[in-house]
Structures are given as C-alpha cells and as structure tokens.
C-alpha cells in the first residue's frame, strides 16, 4: 500500500484519475461492450462437459418401445379433453391408476389482480392430477418429476400421451431408486405454482389450493414436456426460469448428450448449432443465440413450466418439440427413449445436481460462458460509476472555498429528492393494481403516463440548490446505482448488464451544466421504460419476427402488464426492482439535470 500512503504519489494518482476520468470512462464502456460481444466468439468460450460423475460414466440403455401407443393415448386424452371442455380429471385418474401409479388430485383457484388479455383469463379454477410411481425398496425420500401441461385447444396432447406411455413403461422396471411423479397441470404456470406451493406447503402468492395427499420426498430434478405434433423435427431446450434463475448446467449437458447419442436435432433459443464459427454469419448466429438468452433471462419470467421449480432448488428444464419444415424427422418412440435415458441417469444421481455451473450463458448448446468470463463485461461498466464517484469525491474534498460557502449542503436538501423519488417509485408500484378497477382497459397506458407525470412533478417540486448540493446528490446517486446494479448483476447478470448499458452513460454524463433539452431527451431515451421498449423491438428482431411500431407499442404495454402479473402470480422480482429502486435512481439523475 506504499503507493497510496505516499502523499506525493497519491496526489499524482488522484490527479491522473481526475484528469483522465472521461477518457478512461469511455474506454471502459467500449471495453465492456466489446468484452460482452466477444463472449459469443467460439474460441473464447468453453465446451460443455458433464461434471456430475454419477451421470457421466454410467451407461444406460434406452428401450422404450411404445411411442405409437403413447400417441394413441394422447389422442384419447384429446377426445376426453374436448368432451369435458377442460382437464379430463376422471379419465386421467383412471388411466394413471390402470398403469399402476398412486393417483392424487389437487384443486386450486386464483383470481388475477386484473384480467390477463394474452391468455384471456381472470378467475382461474382448475385441477392438477398427478400419479406417483413408487420406487421399489426406496423410503420415499427422493423424487423426480415429469410434467406436461394440459393446454387449451389441440396443444400438448402428445406430451400428455407420452407422459402416460412413459409412466406405463417405467412402472415395469425394477431399477428405480427415486419415486417418479407424473404431473399433468392445468392452466400452465398457475397450476404448476399451485402444485409446487402445495407440495412444499408454502404460500407466497396468496393462491387457494387444496393440500396434497401424496408426496415423494425431496424433489431432485424435474422436466416439463411440451409436444404438439406426432412427429417433430427438433427438440428445444428452455432453461430460463423465474427471476433469471437457471438450472444447473449439467441438466443441459445431459439433454445435449442424449440428443447426440440418440440422434435428435436439438436447439436452444430455437437456434440450431452451427459449425462455421469463423465466418461472420456463424458468429452473428452465436451472438443472436446468446442475446436471446440474455433478453429472456433479463425479463425474469419463467419461460416454461420448469421455471417455477428453481425457487425450490429443484433443477428443472422444459423440453419443447418443434415441428418445422426441416427434412429430419423424429417420432415419439425416439423422444420417449431420450426421456427414458435422461430419467435413468437422473435416477442414478447420488446427490443433487451441484457439480456444474449455475451461472452461465449459452451461445450454443455445446458451448457456454461461465460467470468468471462474463462478469468482467459488467465489471468494466460498473467501474465507470466508481471512477465518477471518485472524481466527485475529490472535487468535493479539494476546493478550499467550501468553508466560505457557509456549510456543506444540508441533509435536508439531499434527503428531499431521495425521499420524493422513492415515493414516486412506490406510487408507480402501487398504482397499476390499485387503479385497475378504474382503468381495466387502459391501465398500461396510464402507467406510462404516470412515469412522465411524476418525473415532471418531482422536477417542479424541487427547491433551488447549491453547486455543492448537486455534487453530493450525484455522488450519492452514482454510488446507489453502483450498489444496485452490482447486486442485480450478481443475481441476474442479464438484467444488471442491460440496465448498466443504459443507465451508466446517464450517470456518467449528467450535470446541471449540460444543454438541458438535449440531455433531457437523452435521459428519457435511456430511461428504464424506453430500455424496455427497445428491448421488445430487439427481441422480436432476434427471433426473426420484426414488427411494426404500432404492434411493438402494443406488445410493450402487454409486456408491462405481464411483468406485473408475473410479480403477483409467481413472485417475480423484476417489476418491484424496476419501480422501487431503478426508476427512483433514474429520477435522481433527472433531478441533477434540472438542478438550479
């Protein structure tokens, strides 16, 4: 620490840092973005490998024969579903019982805070049916779950058929060491939430459900199956769960290993893997795949029924059958064999999946970027905030006229904007649900209006402050943002990174002395709401489904309402994070701009 304790060198270092502050910040920003873009470049990434010994070397042989019969069961299920106009509970119970499972049901009901326009539901009432295959000579301490949603229309009938087919086949095998729970959940995520809450006897979201009668101990892993056609061309793996949580990478490895072994095309984010990493198109393909993962993870919503398991420390993924125009076709028997293989390996597990990574990004199914590689990208952005804070600190502590000025800015002048901006955040958090009776149709619109109105309200409310005042406020705001983004990035890297991309420049450049109108415009463009709007367009672009501005705006509004619904239905934290913390932080910068 000689460097810092020596006053001369210290002064030199500080002057260097303050003098070169802006260039260093710009370089850091560029480097951060470049680092991030480099993550998708294949030579910089690692190949996936199986870390869990219990799943690696042990060979299993897949023998599931009855794909056709499973599809027939699926058709029968579909007929009964049509007849009852919903979940055919009786039929499912009878069928599962006939296959030798212990069958139980769970009823649940839930009233949404406001009508969900995407899925057209408000008062939800349904029944989950699940059958437990008891492992011979096992003491009911561990279980695996295979679930398939009972979807409206003609969707997912094949998934339920295959689930029942596998149940029948699994029942006749002696090698199971863990109970296997076959679950058919109604109303997709709501049913899954009810079942998981019932299984763990918690109630985090205020749902009504009837208690479960049968259990199989602690659940070790789960797969959710979505199949809507008899023949599929590829299988897509969905990993992103609630709040951006991901299952252990070994689960993805297991899926990939079996796809390779059995010869099924497999995709992630709906994108096939390409071998031409050295070409521009190959690289951009990898970037797109990774960006899709980042966007999905940042959204914090469960992208499949598996997403809710992760809260309970259960490794889970969704496997989706895709039927496109590709030549390569796979039948239900093959998918059944794939699932059988995966379950037999999961059955071999001695411990919970813990060997491999929990924090990763995947530019393709065979490559991954671990936390050690992607964190520097965020670190380079976050260091800008620290540099600015250092600069401000030095500016605040050096000028001798501080004593002439009377006193350092009062605590009150600092607290007022802080309190008001947070109150605005609280209002933003409360209003949409409070006022939903008034504006059931238009509340997303009113919500965005609220953003602008409250922002201006805060601005007009402020009393004039001193030169020292805004510096102190900015120092506080910059450090606040650094802590906030740092914590967010630790939990959900993607969200933290996207917020950092837009908010860090704001935090870096904003002072009362920059041109007001232009800066205000930039500030609005880089606000959290606009970031979301751009993300919506960008996401559609990445999925190769570009949309018009009109549709994009509508989608933007529905995304906001989905976010609020995710928060109240499943406990997603993105909405409260944005409204209660990120948005007030942005307002602080708005305050600084209009400081006079």
């Amino acid at each position, binding site marked *: *620490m000689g460097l*810092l*304790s020596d006053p001369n060198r210290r002064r030199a270092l500080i002057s260097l840092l303050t003098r070169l502050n802006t260039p260093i910040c710009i370089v850091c920003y560029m480097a951060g973005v470049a680092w991030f873009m480099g993550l998708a470049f294949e030579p910089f990434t690692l190949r996936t490998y199986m870390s869990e010994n219990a799943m690696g070397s042990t060979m299993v042989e897949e023998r599931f024969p009855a794909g056709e019969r499973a599809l027939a069961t699926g058709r029968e299920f579909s007929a009964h579903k049509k007849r009852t106009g919903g979940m055919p509970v009786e039929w499912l119970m009878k069928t599962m*019982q006939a296959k*030798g499972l212990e069958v139980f049901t769970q009823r649940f009901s839930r009233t949404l805070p406001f009508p969900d326009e995407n899925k057209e539901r408000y008062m939800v009432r349904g029944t989950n049916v699940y059958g437990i295959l008891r492992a*011979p*000579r096992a003491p009911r301490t561990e279980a695996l779950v295979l679930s398939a949603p009972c979807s409206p229309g003609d969707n997912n009938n094949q998934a339920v058929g295959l689930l029942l087919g596998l149940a029948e086949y699994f029942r006749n095998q002696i090698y199971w060491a863990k109970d296997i729970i076959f679950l058919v959940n109604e109303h997709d995520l709501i049913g899954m939430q009810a079942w998981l809450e019932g299984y763990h*006897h*918690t109630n985090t979201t205020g749902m009504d459900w009837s208690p479960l009668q049968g259990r199989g101990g602690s659940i070790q892993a789960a797969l959710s199956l979505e199949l809507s056609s008899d023949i599929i061309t590829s299988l897509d793996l969905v990993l992103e769960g609630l709040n951006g949580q991901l299952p252990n990478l070994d689960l993805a490895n297991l899926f990939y290993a079996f796809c390779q072994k059995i010869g099924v095309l497999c995709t992630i984010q709906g994108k096939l893997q390409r071998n031409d990493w050295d070409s521009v198109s190959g690289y951009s393909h990898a970037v797109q795949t990774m960006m899709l993962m980042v966007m999905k993870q940042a959204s914090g919503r469960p992208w499949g029924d598996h997403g809710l398991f992760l809260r309970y420390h259960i490794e889970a993924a969704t496997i989706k059958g895709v039927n496109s125009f590709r030549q390569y076709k796979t039948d239900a028997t093959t998918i059944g064999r794939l699932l059988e293989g995966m379950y037999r390996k999961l059955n071999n597990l001695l*411990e919970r999946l813990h060997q491999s990574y929990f924090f990763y990004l995947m530019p393709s199914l065979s490559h991954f970027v671990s936390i050690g590689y992607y964190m520097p990208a965020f670190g380079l952005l976050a260091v800008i905030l620290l540099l600015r804070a250092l600069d401000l600190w030095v500016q605040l502590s050096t000028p001798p006229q501080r004593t002439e000025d009377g006193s350092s800015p009062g605590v009150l002048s600092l607290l007022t904007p802080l309190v008001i901006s947070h109150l605005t955040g609280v209002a933003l958090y409360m209003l949409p649900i409070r006022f939903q009776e008034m504006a059931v149709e238009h509340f997303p619109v009113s919500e965005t209006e609220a953003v602008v109105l409250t922002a201006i309200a805060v601005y007009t409310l402020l009393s004039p402050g001193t030169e020292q005042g805004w510096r102190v406020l900015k120092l506080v705001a910059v450090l606040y943002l650094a802590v906030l983004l740092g914590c967010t990035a630790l939990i959900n890297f993607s969200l933290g990174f996207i917020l950092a991309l837009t908010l860090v420049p704001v935090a870096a450049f904003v002072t009362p002395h920059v041109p007001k109108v232009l800066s205000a415009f930039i500030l609005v463009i880089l606000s959290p709401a606009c970031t979301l709007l751009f993300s919506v367009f960008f996401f559609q672009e990445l999925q190769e489904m570009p949309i018009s501005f009109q549709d994009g705006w509508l989608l933007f509004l529905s995304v906001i309402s989905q976010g609020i619904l995710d928060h109240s239905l499943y406990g997603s934290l993105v909405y409260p994070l944005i409204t209660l913390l990120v948005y007030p932080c942005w307002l602080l910068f708005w305050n600084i701009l209009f400081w006079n």
Partner: protein
Amino acid sequence: AMAEQKFRVRARALVCVFVCVVMCGCGRDDFQEELVIRPLHSGDIYTSFQFRTLWETDFTRENKVSHYRLFPKSLGQVISKFSVRELHISFTQGYWRTMQWGQPYLPSPPGAELWVWFQDSLTDVDGTWKELTNVLSGIFCASLNFIDSTNTVQPSASFKPLGIGNVTDHRFLRYATLPREIVCTENLTPWKKLLPCGSKAGLAVLLKSEKLFHSSFHSQAVHIRPVCKDDQCKTTSWELRQTLNVVFDLHNSGQGKNEWSLFKMFSRTLTEACPVASSSKIYIDITDNSQGEQFELSPATPLLSQAVVLGDRRTFSVYDLTQQITFGTMRSLNLLIRGKSSDMLRPLLHAERYVAGYGLQTGEIHTLMYNNHPYRSFPVLLLDSVPWYLRLYIHTLTVTSKGKDNKPSYIHYQPSKDRVRPHLLEMLVQLPPNSVTEVTLQFERALLKWTEYTPDPNHGFYVGSSVISSLVPSIVAMDTNNSRERPLFSSFFPSKEESSYFVRVYTEPLLVNLPTPDFSMPYNVICLTCTVVAVGYGSLYNLLTRSFQIEEPSPGLAKRIANIIRKMRGVPPL
C-alpha cells in the same frame, strides 16, 4: 468280526446315552417356523416368515451358560454379557405403503432400528449400549456402530417391554434408528446363519437373496425377549423371533400375469420341514376370497384356521409341512396363487410426514395423522427424534385437528445439545374420528463445521421416521351386526382382547438439505477473489478516508529523555 460287532454295539449304546443326556439336559428347546402369505389389495403378495426359538435358561440365576443347542451362541453371549433384557433390531429396505397394503404384521421403519431394554441391575447403561451396538454391528454386518449419543434417545412412553417383567424405568431403555442404512445380502446371510437349520432345510430354503431383493419391500428383524414357560410363570425362557417380511410386486416380474407360485417368488420349492422344528406351517390368507373369486390355490388344502389379526377376523388356509401328505406325490410343495388387483385402502390409522418451505435457512416439519374410524376417537403416542443440526423451535409446535387446536395431554420434550444428543419429542394426542391431525414444528438449519459434513453433503441429511403407537379400535368390534358365528349373548359387550389392537406406524424418513459450502474449485476461486477484492477495497477506502500529515522525523533518544525531564519540571518541551 466279533470285536467289531462289540465295538459297534458299544458305540451305539454310547450314542444312545449321549442323545439321552442331550434330550434330558436341554431338550426343552423349541423351534417353530411359519410362513404367512397374504395377497394384498394392490395385487402385490405379502410374505411374512417367522422363526421362533425358545431357550429354557435363566440368566438371572446362573451366570455362566456354555451349552447351546438351538439358540444361536452369538446372540446368547450378547444377552449374558451386556445384561440385555430385551432386544429388538430390524433392517428394512423400502417403505411400507399403508394406503395400499394395509397394516403389516410387524412394522419397521426404513433403515435400521434398534431398541434395547437393559437389566435394572446394570450401572453403566451408556457404556454398555455403545459396546452392544458395536458387537451387533459385527454380528449383522451393518453400520450399527454409527449409533452414538447423537442419535440415541430414551423414549418415556412409546416403547414398553414386550416380554415379561415390569421394569418401565426408561433409564434402562435405548432407542436409535439409522434411516440411511441400506439392507442387502450381506445383512441377510448372518441373519440366516442364526437359524438352527440355516438355509439348508425348512422354510428357510426359500430365502434366496436374488429373489428377496427383487421386491417392493424387504424387512428382516430379530426380537429377543423373556417369556413365561407355563401358565404360572414360575420359570422363564428366552424367545428369539426372527422375522422376514417381503412384498413382491406383480408388475415388476409377472409380465402382467397375476399368477404366483412359490417357485416364481423364491425360485425354490419346499421339500421338507426343518427336522428340528416342532411346527412348520404355511398360512395363506384367504379372507377376501371366500368364494374363490379373487384367487385360487393349488394344491388345495382342507385345513382352515381363523384368527383375529390386527383387529380383523381373518381366515387362513394352512399347510402343515411336518405332514408328509402335504407334499403329495411330487415330494415338493409349490403353491400357485392366481389373483387380480383392486384399488386403494383406507386404513384406520396412518400417517405421513414432510418438510415444508424452501430455502436453506428455516423449514417446517409437518406430520399428518389420519384417523379414518367413522365414529371413535383414540389416543396416539407420537415419538419424534430429530438430529441436533435441525434446531427445533419448540414454541412453534402446533397440533390441529379439523381446523381446531388439539392440545396434547402429555408432552415429553428433551432439547438437543449440539453434537451431543438429538431432540426428543413425545406427545399423547387424541385423534378425533374421521379426521386429519396435523403437527407442525419449525426448525432452523444449522451450519455444520466443515469436517462434520458427510462425503456427499449435497445429498442431504436424514431425519428418522416418527413413530406413532396406538391402541386402535378393531374392525371386529366395529361390526356390531356380526352375529353369524357367535351366540347373541356373547356379542353385546365387546370382549377386551378384540375391542382394540396395538398398532405402530412409522412415517417416512425425511431428507433435509443443510446449507452446504461448495467444496470445489470454484469455491476456492470465489474465496480467493473475495480476498483480492477485499484487499483492493481496503486500499481504496484507505485512499478515500485517511488524511495524511507530514510529521517531523522522530526525535532522538537524548531529546526524548530531555523532554520527559522538562515535562516533569513543567517546562514546555523542546
């Protein structure tokens, strides 16, 4: 030739005398074997073996016993050396599915269970218990040596002596379970060696491990207790009961055909009884099959027996293996049972248990006890032994039935001591008719020292089964219209022995994850990175907060001394 003849005669006489001595001296030892086969409602087959050896000796009077006939010497020595009054040990692989199979004849929890009553003359019970578990560990080839003070409890009410004697001071009782114990062939072989005929003859011929472990449930046990020899109970003898319960699964190996035979189940048939057995019988429960619609037996037997088992009147077909006629012309017995299955049961008493909550900080243990009796309530004794690393919050204990608070009439709670002893909770709870009683208890997960984790810490830690003991009103007593066989005058007041029966129900063990450090390379990396960050932060903080001043170089020794002197004189220093 003559001499040879003489010698033969003499030898024969000698043998006669020897045999006489044996017969007179200890000839009152007795061995019985029996097998009960019961087709279950779920379509599975429950087979229960019992081997009973009686030993006419009294340890309390003569200390040294050196002659053993039918009773295994290894166990006899254990009894005498460790002053054991009663010993019950069971090894179970699997969980008894009460909802599908009804009550077992002999309940046992998954894993290993050991409970021992010591003689009241014993002074150092804990030391003896420690030695005993180590010796039994060797005899049964099991990890009973892992029983120590952290998983041993002294239940005050749940485990009473089953033999004669009225010592009920629970200072002489030790109870321990090892829920993680895995039972396999290595435990079966020493168990079989305790039988007088080994597995060479009699029912034990059927005990082939490759078949016994190809089943849904496997449980083997040894029970030793003193019993009365006669009605007056003037003399006592030791009873050794070896039991083995297996449930075979129709689905797994029957290829959908519900046809069972001894050969299919055990890959052996019976050819003879154990020669030293005084009784050797096979009972087949045919109660649900009065008209022969469920299954048929072949060869058929004319012998029938009726008994009240677990509160229910059952009818059994009996095959007596000591009668040559049983084996017919083939000189071997192979029973064939054809059956079909039906659905779930509602046993009068059953229980389940699970861990609620998520995250690695706290949790809640829920125990559900079902009383399915339509109109009668009965009390149950609940015993919970929870390892110390789950820190129970006893003030959160709630007992509710039908939405109302149900106050236990007796609670015995012994708090745990870290690394020394487990929690023990015993409660007497009244279960209202047709109800579910829920017992909840919150706990906190302790952070262990890093050497205390098992080699597979991410598997989780086991909490043994709770034990629910109760006198359950019997089905026979419930059936007031049953006057078919009994005269009316005898059936108004239910007779005592039939009105209720003892049931012990074990819940499933729990697997609880404790907060576990990541014992791996990334963990080290994180630790290292954190250190580096801390150092970096420290220096930055230093830079931001410390104010430096240029100080005079420190004065020389002479100057300092001079200053001290000046200070004493009250003159300003140099």
